[in-house]
């Protein structure tokens, strides 16, 4: 198998699996129970939360554990009282929630980066919530979050001067960036941040939402009052411990990862360029997560390519209108101005732990051969 879809899911690391194991059976107690063994589980859980929080430069009490990034994003939006702005290339778990509110979409440039002029224009007096992913899930474009936070700070100041009491919060979904960027909430200047275990070699179904101190959320789940009353439900102890272990591990390997993937992506790109049918490379090269390689072969049916690659046990994804996207073409690729033909020919290759030089070279050969076959098929 050659897995080139790490942006979709990552395998749970050995360390994370080992760390989780005791909490699935022996230490199964409900952390809210009164007896000692349960209190021990509570302590381990809180420690895991602290570990996760430390990875983003926060305290354990600053984060709310959720069932994943989708829930964290949904919960973040409960803050809106007036109007939100979202980047046109956001994940559906942001775009679709935004549709429940007065909202506007911020345009992106052809390279996938935020159109700052459009952002400033749309940041009107009513806006109280802005959501921009640190790195996009389709193109891996790293948005200039610190710069965006600066604009938000200036706007807050302007409002105070004018006696406008509307607050303004910045939320960012950092799920895709966790393996490659040193995430620090203070440096990023965000008020809320979404993180996701499944993208960082932790178990699926675990995520968290970081909240700065002046954020007052409305819970979506009511019950036992866990997570400071903001997210009721018995704690997913094993999941959170797995997440903590995996995130810490990833954090320790940030620099190594970045370099490793830079090198592998270069081999991948160079290899794809050598093909008779050369792809268009999508996204902003310098502002892209180094494990991302989104491409397009205009005129080629990417879904056919995916099925052929699948027969060779090479797994990739596409922004084309297909089953994975409920027949809808990628809104991200449309937002950067790709034509329908370019979108239909798009492949997202995302690298990770399961890749090395050898399997990337193999992948290049198989992809090039498959694309050529499809190209020749079209010529007939």
């Amino acid at each position, binding site marked *: 198998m050659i897995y080139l879809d790490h942006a979709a899911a990552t395998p749970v690391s050995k360390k994370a699996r080992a760390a989780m194991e005791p909490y699935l059976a022996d230490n199964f107690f409900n952390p809210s129970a009164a007896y000692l063994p349960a209190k021990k589980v509570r302590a381990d859980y809180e420690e895991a939360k602290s570990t996760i929080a430390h990875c983003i430069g926060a305290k354990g009490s600053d984060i709310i554990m959720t069932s994943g990034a989708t829930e964290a994003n949904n919960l973040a939006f409960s803050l809106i009282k007036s109007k939100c702005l979202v980047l046109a290339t956001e994940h559906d778990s942001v775009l679709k929630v935004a549709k429940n509110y007065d909202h506007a979409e911020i345009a992106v440039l052809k390279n996938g980066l935020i159109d700052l002029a459009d952002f400033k224009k749309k940041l009107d007096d009513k806006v109280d919530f802005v959501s921009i992913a640190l790195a996009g899930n389709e193109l891996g474009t790293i948005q200039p979050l610190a710069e965006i936070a600066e604009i938000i700070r200036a706007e807050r100041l302007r409002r105070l001067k004018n006696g406008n009491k509307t607050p303004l919060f910045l939320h960012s979904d950092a799920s895709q960036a966790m393996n490659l960027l040193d995430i620090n909430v203070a440096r990023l200047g965000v008020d809320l941040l979404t993180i996701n275990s499944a993208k960082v070699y932790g178990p699926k179904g675990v995520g968290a939402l970081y909240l700065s101190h002046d954020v007052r959320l409305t819970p979506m789940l009511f019950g036992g009052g866990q997570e400071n009353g903001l997210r009721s439900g018995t704690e997913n102890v094993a999941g959170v411990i797995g997440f903590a272990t995996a995130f810490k591990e990833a954090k320790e390997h940030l620099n190594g990862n970045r370099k490793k993937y830079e090198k592998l992506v270069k081999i991948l790109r160079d290899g794809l360029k050598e093909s008779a049918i050369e792809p268009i490379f999508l996204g902003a090269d310098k502002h892209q997560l180094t494990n991302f390689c989104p491409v397009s072969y205009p005129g080629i049916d990417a*879904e*056919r390519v995916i*099925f052929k690659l*699948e027969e060779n046990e090479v797994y990739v994804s596409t922004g084309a209108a*297909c*089953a*994975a996207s*409920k*027949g809808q073409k990628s809104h991200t690729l449309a937002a950067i101005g790709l034509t329908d033909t370019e979108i239909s020919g798009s492949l997202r290759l995302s690298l990770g732990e399961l890749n090395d030089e050898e399997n990337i070279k193999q992948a290049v050969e198989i992809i090039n051969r498959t694309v050529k076959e499809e190209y020749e*098929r079209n010529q007939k």
Partner: protein
Amino acid sequence: MNATKNKTVYLGMSGGVDSSVSALLLKEQGYKVIGVYMKNWSKDLPGMKCPWAEDLADAKRVAVKLDLDFEVWDFEEAYKKRVVDYMLEEFKKGNTPNPDIMCNQEIKFKLFYEEAMRRGGDYIATGHYAKTDGKNLLRAADENKDQTYFLYRISNESLEHTLFPIGDMKKPDVKKLAEKNNLHNAYKKESMGVCFVGEVGMKDFLKEYIDIKPGEIREVESDTVLGYHEGAVFYTIGQRHGLYISGGLPYYVVKKDLAKNIVYVSKNLNDDNLWTTELELGDIIIRTKKAPTEVLVRLRHRAPLIPAKFNGKKVVFENAIKRPASGQSVVLYDNEICLGGGIII
């Protein structure tokens, strides 16, 4: 073999094992095969996602595996009008229609057929269990799977240009062939019932389109009110579910008064309303030149064939049969040949 060379077949592919194996067989026989997914319906229901995109992907995966061209033809508008709306109207009239029969008549063997011919195709093909000798519609080799009940209304013209590649096969052999050729869909769960209704059931589907209208449930013998229902149109004669009556023997719907919105039930399975020795048919289609008189009759898909007499309007049985609901189809056979049929008035 040479006869198939350069002949173009448009094959309806659903993602299921039957049409997948059909694709394999046609390709092996030397046809130029173009796989087509007919996009007929994509509406989600509350709590149920319409699986059309997954089905499409399954169909396309098989086509790509067999190195076939593959297209998606959109019939959603026509399907809504000619199949779903027809079905809703019939239910509102108190009938129990069969939308699959209408889908074959109006979509697969009409619009799909016409489009295939317009594009220069020599044949269309489907994964139905049925056979044809070029003129007659014939029962499938697998009596347990025979689908001619659903096909009796398709036009002779389209039948002349239709191939049923698996009509000579038994279902277990179709599955085996799929597995042998590594068509992963061989392992796909088989869909049951009306495709667009899916798992939610007909009543829940109908409730999306027809407002509930509470009414009385009365015992037919005593005319006493036993309970209440959500609308007589949701009930079918002979049905025993959903009457909100508990205890004792089950009740069966034996009669509906649509005007008064009353559903009559009985515990008596021998109630006259449930049995008959004859059925009057409307919308009759006779596929053969002369109308048959001595026939075999199928009252439901996969139901056994029963001998009967046919006078051009009515089928008459020697012994009383359990009466199928009005709106259902009665399909007539002369041994292997499907002679046509009609819809119970």
